[in-house]
C-alpha cells in the first residue's frame, strides 16, 4: 500500500511539474519568445550566484559535520603515516585555493556577463601571454607536489630499517593468516600445493627446518610500538589488499607475487583507545581489493603492544609445526628432545 502511495505521489509530482512546464511554454508564446527568454536568462543568472553562495556554505557545513568522523582529527598511527598527513594538508591547501578561486570566477562570470542588450562583446580570441601564465604556474605548483610526493614514495617503498621485524600476511577468501619466522628469524619455504585447511593453511614445507619454528596465527597480529615492521604480503586465491587506514598505508596481496610494505607503529592499541576516546578502538586491516562476495567482511586486527607484552605473547605461542604433528610437541608429550630432532632430520 505504501508502495502504491509512493508511486502515486511521485506520478502526481511529475504531472504537476510537467503542466507547469507546458504552461510556461504557452506563456512564452503569448508574451513573445524574446521577452520570456530574457526573463529566464535573468533568473538563471541569479541562480548562478545563489548556487555559488549555497555551494560554498555547503562545503563549509559539510566540513563541520563530517570532519570529526575522518582520520584527519587523529594523529597518524605510524611514523611514516605522519608524512602522508602532512602531504595531504599541503595538497589540500594548493587544490583548495584553486578550487575556490576557479569556482568563484566561473559562477561570478556567468552572473556578471549574462545577456545584456547594452553590452558589446569583446572579440578576444587569443593571448599568448595569458596562456603562458596558466601553463607555467600550474606546472610549477605540480612540480612542488611531485617532489614532495616522490620523496615520500621512495621512503615508503624503499628498504625498511635494519632492525625491522618481519611478518608475513597472507590473504584468503575471506580472512587473513599471519606468520612469524620464529626463533631462527627466518621463514621456512612454502608451496601452495601443500595447502591443507586442517593443518597447513599456508602450505609450509615441513622438510625445511626453517619452517619448523614458524608461528602461524589468524584473527589478530601483534606488532611492537616503535619497532619498524616489514610485512611480506601474499594471497592464497584472488587478489586482496592489506588496507591500514590508521597507519595511512595499503598494499595489494597478489597470488604468486609477494609484495612488501613497511611502517613504524607509533601508538599501542591501548594508547589509541585513549587518544581517540573510543574504548572499542582496534587497528583494523580492511581488504581494499574486490575479492568476492565476502569482501566486505574480510577483516583482520592488528594489536600494537610494547616490547615486553609482545615477548610475553610470543612466549606462549607454539610453532605451527606442532599443530600439524601434535605428537612431536615436546610440551605435550615430554619425550626426549633429541628424538624429535632426529625424526625431523
Amino acid at each position: 500500500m505504501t508502495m502504491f502511495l509512493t508511486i502515486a505521489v511521485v506520478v502526481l509530482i511529475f504531472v504537476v511539474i510537467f503542466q507547469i512546464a507546458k504552461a510556461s511554454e504557452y506563456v512564452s508564446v503569448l508574451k513573445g519568445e524574446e521577452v520570456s527568454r530574457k526573463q529566464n536568462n535573468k533568473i538563471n543568472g541569479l541562480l548562478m550566484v545563489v548556487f555559488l553562495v549555497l555551494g560554498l556554505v555547503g562545503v563549509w557545513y559539510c566540513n563541520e559535520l563530517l570532519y570529526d568522523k575522518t582520520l584527519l582529527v587523529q594523529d597518524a598511527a605510524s611514523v611514516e603515516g605522519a608524512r602522508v598527513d602532512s602531504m595531504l594538508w599541503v595538497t589540500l591547501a594548493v587544490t583548495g585555493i584553486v578550487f575556490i578561486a576557479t569556482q568563484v570566477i566561473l559562477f561570478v562570470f556567468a552572473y556578471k556577463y549574462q545577456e545584456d542588450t547594452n553590452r558589446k562583446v569583446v572579440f578576444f580570441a587569443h593571448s599568448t601571454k595569458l596562456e603562458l601564465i596558466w601553463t607555467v604556474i600550474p606546472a610549477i605548483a605540480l612540480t612542488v607536489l611531485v617532489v614532495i610526493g616522490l620523496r615520500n614514495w621512495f621512503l615508503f617503498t624503499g628498504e625498511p630499517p635494519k632492525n625491522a621485524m618481519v611478518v608475513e600476511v597472507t590473504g584468503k577468501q575471506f580472512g587473513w593468516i599471519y606468520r612469524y619466522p620464529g626463533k631462527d628469524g627466518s621463514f621456512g619455504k612454502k608451496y601452495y600445493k601443500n595447502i591443507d585447511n586442517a593443518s597447513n593453511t599456508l602450505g609450509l614445507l615441513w622438510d625445511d627446518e626453517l619452517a619448523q619454528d614458524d608461528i602461524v596465527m589468524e584473527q589478530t597480529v601483534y606488532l611492537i610500538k616503535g619497532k619498524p615492521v616489514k610485512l611480506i604480503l601474499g594471497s592464497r586465491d584472488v587478489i586482496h589488499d592489506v588496507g591500514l587506514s590508521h597507519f595511512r598505508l595499503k598494499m595489494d596481496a597478489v597470488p604468486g607475487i609477494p609484495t612488501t610494505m613497511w611502517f613504524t607503529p607509533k601508538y599501542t592499541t591501548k594508547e589509541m583507545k585513549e587518544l581517540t576516546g573510543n574504548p572499542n578502538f582496534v587497528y583494523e586491516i580492511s581488504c581494499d581489493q574486490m575479492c568476492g562476495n565476502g569482501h566486505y567482511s574480510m577483516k583482520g586486527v592488528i594489536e600494537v603492544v610494547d616490547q615486553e607484552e609482545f615477548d610475553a605473547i610470543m612466549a606462549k605461542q607454539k610453532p605451527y609445526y606442532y599443530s600439524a604433528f601434535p605428537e612431536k610437541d615436546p610440551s605435550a608429550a615430554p619425550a626426549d628432545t633429541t628424538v624429535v630432532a632426529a625424526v625431523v632430520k
Partner: protein
Amino acid sequence: MSHEAVLHGDAHGHDDHGHHEHHDTFLTKYVFSQDHKMIAKQFLITGMVWAVLGGLMSVLFRLQLGYPDSTFPFLEDLLGKWGKGGRITPEAYYALVTTHGTVLVFFVLTAGLSGTFANFLIPLQVGARDMASPFMNMLSYWFFFAASIVMLSSMFVETGPFSGGWTAYPPLSALGDASPGSKTGMDLWLVSMALFVVSSLLGGLNYIATILNMRTKGMSMTRLPLTIWALFFTAVLGVLSFPVLFSGFILLIFDRNFGTSFYLSDIFVNGVGALPNEGGSAILYQHLFWFLGHPEVYIILLPAMGMVSEILSINSRKPIFGYMAMIGSLFAIAILAFLVWAHHMFVTGLNPFLGSVFVLLTLLIAVPSAIKVFNWLTTLWRGNIRFTPAMLFAIGFVSLFISGGLTGIWLGNSALDIHLHDTYFVIAHFHIVMGVASMFGMFAGIYHWFPKMYGKQLNNTLGYIHFWVTIAGAYLIFWPMHYEGLAGMPRRYYDFSIWESFKQFGELNKFISLVSMIVFMVQLLFLFNFFYSIFKGRKLTKQNPWDATTLEWTAPINPGHGNWVGEIPEVHRWPYDYGKDGVDFIAQTTPVGADESQH
C-alpha cells in the same frame, strides 16, 4: 573503396532529385539505416535505455548502503532470490555494482556519447553527406546492440551476472569457484565486451577516416569546430587502446576455458583445492586492462570537452578563447592518456621507480587540463551569456571538471594514493570528473542539438529544473564521499556495520541514498521531456536556432540522407567568429569581406 563510390553516387542523386526517402522502407530507414543521423539516434536511445537501467541499479545498491538494516518487500518481488527477505544479498549487491560500472562506462558514456555525437556531428560539421563507410557505421551500431543483448541476458543466468567489479581483475574473474558471478555470467560479460570492442573499432575507424578525408571545400583542419577535434582524438584513443583490452580479454578467456596460465599462479581455492596453474601473473591483466582503462577515461571525457567548448562559445556570443591551445591541450591529453595507466596500480607492488615515472606523467595531465579550464573561463569573460539549458549544463561541466580534476592531483601522487586508493575518495573523484561531468557534457549536447536531430524543441522549463536539481544533487551525493574516503572507508563494501573504523557514516549514507533517488527521478523527467518533445514538441521554425556559425545549421531543418539539398556549402573561415567587428555571428560559409579585421 566501393562504399565510397556508392555514397558519391548517392550524393549526386541528391543533387539531381533532391530527396530519395521514398525509396526507404521502415526497415532501411529506422532499423538497418545507413544514415549517420539515424545511427546516431539509435546509439543515443540505446544509451538512454542503459543509462536508466544503470541508474536504477545504483538506486538499488544505494538502498542497501543507506538502509542496511531495513527490509523492502518489493525487492523480493523484483529480484527474487537476489532480494530474499526484502534485502539485497551480497551476491546481488556486487552484481549490481559491477554491472552499473560496466554499463555506465562502456555502454552509456562511450557508445552513448561518442556513438551519438561522433555519428551525428562529424558529417554535419565537416560538411560530408555521410560517414566514410555508412555500412561499417551501421555494423558498428548492430555490434553494440548485440553486446547490449548479451550483457542483458547475463542478468538472467542461474549463477547471476558477473560480480567482480567492472575492472574484472583475475584471478577473481577467472575462477568460477571463487565467485558464482565468475561462472556463466562472466562468459557472457566477456562475449558482450568483445562485441563492444568490435563496435568501437568499426565506429572509430569511420570517424577518423571521415574527419581526415571528407571535409568540404575550405574546411582545413584548423577550421574544424572543437567538437570535431575532440571526437577525432577520442576515436584515435579508442582505435589504439581497445585492441589491447581485447587481447587482455582473449587471454582471460583462454585462462577460463582452455587451461592456460596467463594470469594464474599459486592458487588454492577453498572447497576446490590447489589449481595446477603456475607461472602466470595476475598483474599482467591489470596492465592490459588499464592500457585501455585510462585512455577510456578520456574517451569518455574528450567528446564532452569538445561539445562544452562549442556550446560555451556559442552562448557567450564570443569566440572560444585560445582555439589552438584548446587543440594543443586535447593533443597533449591524448598523448599523456597512453602514458599514465599504471597510476591505477600504485599499490600492486609495482617497481617504485616505474611508479615514480607514472606519478610525474600523471600530474603532467593537470597542465593541459588547467589550460582548458582557464580558457573556458576566459571565454565567458565579457561575453553576453544566454542561459539555454545546454549552456547551463556546459557551465555545470566546467564546475564539475574543476572539482573532480583537482582531487586527481591527490590520487595521482602515489604517496597519497597509498592512503586513499580504493576508498570512497576515489569514488567521489571519478564520479565527479568522469561520470557526472561527462554526463553533463552529454546533456549539454542533447539539449543543444536536439532541434537538429528531430526538428523539434525541448521544453526549456523542464530543462532548467533538470539542470538545477541534477547539479545540486550531484554535489550532495559525491562531495561528502570525500570525507568517507578520508576516513579510509573502502569501496565495494556491502555493509559497514562490523567495522569499528567505518561505521560512523550511517546517517550520511542514508542521506546520500535519498538524494540519489531524487536525482534519478529527475532524470526520468528529462527522458519524458525528450520523448514527449520528439512527438509533441513545438516545431522548430528557425533553421539556426542558436545563431551558430557551424555547418550543421546550414542544412535543412529536417535534413534527409545526404544532409544538404544541392551542393555542400563551402567554408571560408574558422567556426568562432562571434562578436567580430560588432557583428553577432558570421557563419563559416560567409566569405571573408575585404574590410574585415584579422584575428
